[in-house]
């Protein structure tokens, strides 16, 4: 579903992503692991066609981000973590409906979809309130609903649990697992190895823009001969650094 093929991205003389290759299949939550500045967001932005790869290509559902960006955008939903961008002066419903309309949903279909998402994410109590006064957790729910409003096949989650408390982060991961059961293709980035392991069987580790590992967590454990995830991560980062 997602094929990242020898992708590089340079900003002037900063090489943010260097020759990265991995692929994600449907019904899978794939982990993209890296420290701050590793190039996770840049990779996601290239998948979402906001940035163009300097070299290489990414295919989503068979469509190239270079030559068929609109087809790609139709099929993806992207969620940025941290201080999620919502329109504070609009209600939760208005925020979600706006994006729904931009994906071509209208009328009863749109209303039904919003009600469905509202139930799924337990937003009934605040769906018609303005987003400005919401807590981080509530905002996150609205942002998720917005990401899923057009029922995308491919879901890109860029450090989605940043800023969430433990309960909210747990709930979020349960929801991701549910989406996996529906057969969605999910890319989940994080700087936290423990979190990734709870959800993903396959991961890619990037460091300073370069791919350090792509494969299953189990194989990684075996290769490093260590059990502690943080140790493994450190080992991987240092290995390539030398």
């Amino acid at each position: 579903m997602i094929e990242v093929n020898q992708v590089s991205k340079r900003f002037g003389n900063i090489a943010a992503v260097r020759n990265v290759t991995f692929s994600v299949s449907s019904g899978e939550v794939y982990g993209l692991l890296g420290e701050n500045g590793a190039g996770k967001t840049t990779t996601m932005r290239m998948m979402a066609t906001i940035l163009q790869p300097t070299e290489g290509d990414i295919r989503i559902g068979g469509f190239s981000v270079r030559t068929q960006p609109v087809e790609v955008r139709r099929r993806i939903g992207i969620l940025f973590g941290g201080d999620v961008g919502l329109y504070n002066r609009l209600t939760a419903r208005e925020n979600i409906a706006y994006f729904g309309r931009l994906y071509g949903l209208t009328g009863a279909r749109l209303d039904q979809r919003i009600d469905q998402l509202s139930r799924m994410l337990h937003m009934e109590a605040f769906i018609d309130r303005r987003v400005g006064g919401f807590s981080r957790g509530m905002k996150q729910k609205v942002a998720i609903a917005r990401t899923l409003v057009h029922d995308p096949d491919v879901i890109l989650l860029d450090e989605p649990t940043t800023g969430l408390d433990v309960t909210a982060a747990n709930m979020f991961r349960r929801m991701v697992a549910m989406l996996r059961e529906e057969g969605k293709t999910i890319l989940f980035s994080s700087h936290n190895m423990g979190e990734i392991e709870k959800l993903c069987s396959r991961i890619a580790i990037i460091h300073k823009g370069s791919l350090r590992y792509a494969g299953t967590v189990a194989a990684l454990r075996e290769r490093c001969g260590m059990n502690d995830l943080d140790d493994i991560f450190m080992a991987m980062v240092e290995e390539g650094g030398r």
Partner: protein
Amino acid sequence: MDRQVVWTIFGKEMLDLLRDRKTLIGTFLIPLVVIPFVFFLLSMSYSNVEKEARAYVPIAVTGTSKLVDHLRSQPGVRILSPDRPAEALQAGELRAIVTIPDHFDQALRSGGSARLHVAYDNTNQKSVYAKSVIDSAVQQYSSDIVSMRLRQAGLSAEAIKPIETTYENAASDERQTGGMLAGIIPLMVVLSLASGGVAAATDLVAGEKERGTLESLLTTPIAANQILTAKLLAVMVMSCISATASLLSLSFVFRLGPLKVDGTVLSFGFLSPASLAVLAATIVLLAALFAGLELTLSTVAKSFKEGQTYMTGVVILAMIPSYMLMPIHPVDIPALYYVLPVFNGVALCKEAFYGAVDPLHTLVGLGTSLLYVSVVIAATARLFRREGAVVRW
């Protein structure tokens, strides 16, 4: 589908903007606060200066003559004799100093002429008024002398004034109103056009970029151009709302205010359909130009704050031509102004309000405006579509 997307975005932008107090303040500041305030100040200072100038006219007189009686009989005149008259005049304690030479009355009575010296302060409105008071006293005294001389020669007063002229002002009341409004209205309209869109433009790009919503918007299957078109429309609408509110506010203030002096009837009746059409086209094009410039700056800005700072530039850009053209009568507007950006809009506004719309000027002014608008919008679009322009990192 294309159009519908633009309307969807436009609808959301308007909803968002109209719920924003900052935007509303920006849009209605000039029409609802600045205009009434400026007019209040103008009329206050105008009527106060006028009143004081009339009520009390202190002058000093040296020498003797019957003229002094005439001066005394003028309303408000007080004859003072300060120690240092020249300094008192400088300080504004005296409005004028009348110096009557020796043997003044004798010279006049004997059929000769005499020279009267009046010192006044041209920079002081009240002193200028005193001068006119002295003038009329001198006129009265002169005509007394003239009648006396004519009588002595056995003639009547008509003998030296065979032609009596009555003057009638060719400008109708409506034209006069137009003239007065033509000075201040383009200034206010152009200023509110420029400033009315500032808050909206800042919010809709720099603000959305800062909040990260623009990035999400660009991951949907719509074109960047559609987003920009909708935003441009939204900013233009806010500009035009501001300008319209300013026009209404001006008409209201003119109707109410004590500026309704000298029998000038103030109405908007002087706007002929042709003037109105030119005015509307000019306003829309100016709004588009300002909206384009403001969105460009908003796109370049790295943050909301930075955007706000840049916007000041647009408002100043609007102010300079407006002030430069304010005192100029349309007939005297240099031809060059009809091709310069913003100048051409202000010039056409003036013509419309003077009821003197010139077809060639209109064609050139609107044509060049359209050109500037296209260039600015093309540049904005290019900037907006540039990779990563809307991404914060």
